[in-house]
């Protein structure tokens, strides 16, 4: 009886002690501070379904909502994340990942291997999003590269089998986002039979909801307007003091609105697409600073190597020597740097020793003299630039002027991107030159080489060169199948040398992204790195990983009072 009484007292004591604890927990969840928010604007709409979204706007949101097996660092390397460790088989065809225990989805379910399997299969069944990075099929639908199959060995072990060795497989996994299988299955629209018994695979529901385990969860998603994310208090990796309680991404409103919102502290980070004058104006606003860093994108003029006159290697080299690169990187885009070969300099595997063409009319004329067009005047040349990127016109006009100096008559066409895609489908409709930005799909040189110069990308906008070289194809395949990183990078370097010698492209500049941000009250790891002079090349979207940022709420309140 006495024991029972003691037990009762103990229960009451525990209950009394628990009340404030529960109260605090409940209060902390409910007391997210609306002022502790990071807001930015981007191209819209944003697709937050990881099997659909692929662009900058999409990935900025997806990385907040979903976890991945491994995680990219700001310097471009990767580290374990949901997967604590992994094994690779001797034939480099089987990867076994061991998952962390206790990772919770936003609805409280535990993340297991079954969710990883489901997310992978869903990605490939839908075939959109980043599926193309992790699996390649031939025209008959046979898997020829990437993940062939995936299975759960137990709750915390998942095994991927590859169709053939793929060296950058682990870095590429930053694009495999893990969804909560049971939650998605509960929200499948069976009335839409697009994916057979899987109905719409939850696509409609996932347009405005998330089924992730990431540090933030969807609080409100308004199609055509904005996404508001709220901190997930039970995030498995915990939280540091000052981490933002909310993030908001919304549609780009225009330059004046951005300036106004930055001045009124209604926006923390600007878009990267503002004109130079706008960044200068932003720097005039107290507390606002701008940063610029080199991305994994570069700007190029692709030369169609199958039609005259660009089918002549000396003609192409002449053009490469005739281009005034300094104007591009000093006058048109001051933060850009001249490209060194086909791979952006921030990408692991870039060959910095490759030949770099420069503006040299003597060499250009020498090459022209060796070409089949020697001595000819007003050689016709067609050049397209993308109507959606107005600054490309400056490059087109510069090219026209430079080419005229060696007797080439460039006819310029401004084309919507959709039309450029159509043109790229056949050799005949592809113009002599196409001014295009290209981005690496994952953080390695192999990504750029594979999608730009392997024959499989012929007929797409990513290869207006129509290079079609079996030797280059084989070299790329061999390099990508090399698991040893040093060896793989050597092979990448050799391919870059070969390409520069073939001059199928004029590699103009590596793109720099410039942002304005509220430096007085926002601590942004990427900005800190850039200011410290360290190179930063996170995969698309990860530069905005909000969990690592900090909002100095008191400082912000002080600024608002002024």
């Amino acid at each position, binding site marked *: 009886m006495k024991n029972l009484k003691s037990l009762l007292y103990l229960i009451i004591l525990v209950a009394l002690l628990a009340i404030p604890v529960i109260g605090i927990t409940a209060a902390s969840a409910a007391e997210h501070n609306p002022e502790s928010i990071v807001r930015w604007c981007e191209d819209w709409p944003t697709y937050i379904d990881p099997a659909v979204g692929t662009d900058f706007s999409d990935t900025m949101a997806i990385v907040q909502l979903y976890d991945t097996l491994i995680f990219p660092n700001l310097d471009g390397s990767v580290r374990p994340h949901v997967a604590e460790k992994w094994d690779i088989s001797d034939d480099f065809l089987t990867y076994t990942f061991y998952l962390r225990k206790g990772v919770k989805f936003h609805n409280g379910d535990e993340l297991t291997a079954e969710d990883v399997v489901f997310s992978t299969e869903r990605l490939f069944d839908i075939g959109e999003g980043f599926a*193309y990075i992790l699996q390649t099929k031939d025209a008959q639908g046979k898997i020829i590269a990437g993940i062939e199959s995936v299975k759960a060995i137990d709750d915390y072990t998942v095994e991927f089998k590859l169709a053939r060795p793929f060296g950058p497989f682990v870095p590429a996994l930053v694009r495999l986002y893990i969804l909560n299988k049971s939650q998605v299955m509960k929200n499948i629209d069976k009335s839409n039979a697009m994916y057979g018994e899987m109905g719409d695979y939850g696509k409609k529901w996932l347009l405005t909801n998330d089924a992730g385990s990431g540090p933030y969860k969807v609080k409100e998603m308004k199609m055509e307007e904005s996404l508001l994310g709220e901190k997930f208090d039970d995030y498995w990796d915990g939280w540091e003091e000052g981490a933002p309680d909310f993030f908001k991404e919304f549609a780009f409103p225009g330059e004046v609105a951005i300036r*106004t919102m930055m001045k009124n502290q209604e926006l923390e980070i600007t878009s990267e697409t503002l004109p130079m004058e706008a960044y200068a104006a932003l720097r005039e606003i107290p507390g606002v600073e701008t940063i610029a860093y080199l991305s994994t994108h570069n700007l190029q003029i692709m030369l169609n190597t199958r039609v005259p006159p660009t089918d002549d290697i000396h003609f192409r080299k002449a053009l490469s020597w005739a281009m005034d690169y300094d104007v591009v990187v000093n006058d048109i885009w001051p933060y850009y740097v001249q490209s060194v070969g086909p791979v952006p300099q921030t990408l692991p595997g870039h060959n910095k020793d490759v030949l770099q063409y420069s503006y040299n009319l003597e060499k250009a004329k020498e090459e022209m003299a060796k070409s089949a067009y020697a001595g000819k005047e007003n050689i016709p040349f067609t050049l397209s630039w993308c109507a959606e990127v107005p600054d490309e016109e400056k490059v087109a006009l510069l090219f026209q002027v430079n080419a005229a100096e060696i007797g080439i008559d460039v006819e310029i066409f401004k084309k919507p991107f959709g039309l450029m895609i159509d043109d790229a489908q056949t050799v005949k409709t592809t113009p002599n030159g196409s001014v295009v930005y290209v981005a690496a799909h994952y953080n390695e040189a192999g990504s750029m080489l594979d999608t730009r110069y392997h024959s499989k990308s012929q007929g797409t906008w*990513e290869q207006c060169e129509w290079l079609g070289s079996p030797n280059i194809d084989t070299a790329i395949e061999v390099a990508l199948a090399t698991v040893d990183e040093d060896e793989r990078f050597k092979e990448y370097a050799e391919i870059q040398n070969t390409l520069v010698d073939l001059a199928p492209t004029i590699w103009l500049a590596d793109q720099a992204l410039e942002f304005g941000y509220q430096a007085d009250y926002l601590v942004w790891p990427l900005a800190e790195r850039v200011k410290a002079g360290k190179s930063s090349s996170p995969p698309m979207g990860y530069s905005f990983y909000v969990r690592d940022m900090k909002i100095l709420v008191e400082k912000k309140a002080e600024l608002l009072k002024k």
Partner: protein
Amino acid sequence: MRLGPFVLRRLAISIFVLFGLSILIFLIARIVPGDPARMALGPRAPVDVVERLRQQMHLDRPLLEQYGLWLWEVAHGNLGDSLVTRRPVKQDIREFFPATLELVGLTAIFIIVGGISLGVISARYANTWFDNVVRLFSYLGIVTPAFAWAVILMLLFGFVWHIFPTYGRLTEGVIPPVTITGMYTIDSLLNGRFDLFWDAFMHLILPAIALALPPMSQAARITRSSMADNQNKDCIASMIAYGVPNRVVTGKYLLKPSLISPITVMALDIAATFGYAFMVEKIFGFPGLARYGIQVMLNKDVNAIVGVVMVLGVVFITLNIVVDIIVAYLDPRIRLLGRNV
């Protein structure tokens, strides 16, 4: 005036107009270069996935068959899915149209009240300093496009003096009223939430003024010149000679016939605002139908393009019918002509 047959006749004609418009826009949306499925799925989507979407959207069928299928779906209340928002176009229009309607509604009030008032006062005090100021203001208003006004107003009242909100329909974090009409000002009043009404109203002021200034200026000019023309007519001089008070002469005998031209122009301007509001909506981050319309056009979102254009077509036709009725009310000659016909 027998309004019934008149309206019925106009409605019957409108059906044919809408039918013609649907054929035209359906064809234009589909024959302009670029594969909608490829644009929706992105350049890296596999061919089989693109082909699956093309089949789902019937883009692999002949144009005539596509139109027939579209018409069949429309008859069942389905405008198809948007490739941009990935949801039914009907749902998009239901969400975005009330926002634009609310904005254009306030714009219309500014145009009508501002345009007529300025025109009347200007005519009343013709060739005085006030008239000259209004004329100068009108010229400035007409030659400056709405988006330029939007930028100027935002700089003045958002950047220099932070008086008005400059983004969205409501202040950040404020929960919208329960949807009844989709127009926040109306819904907040119906819900008895005056705080929300004020918030939504404040968000409308700058974009509405920006949109209203050019057509309002035009309306003021037309009202003034129309009033000035009628002022010199013998009947008006007779009335003044008989001692009819100036207030009555101006309000009843002068203004009424003078409004025919301004009303026609204002109505067309208001209808056009639904379409050209896109820049102003974009600048103020206002999620309306005009901004949506431009976005779907840039993305070759065929179903959404047709849906938006059809809605705008209905707006134009409706406003035209309303104007015809008002004009018929104002001008007995038109009423009588209608009866004879």
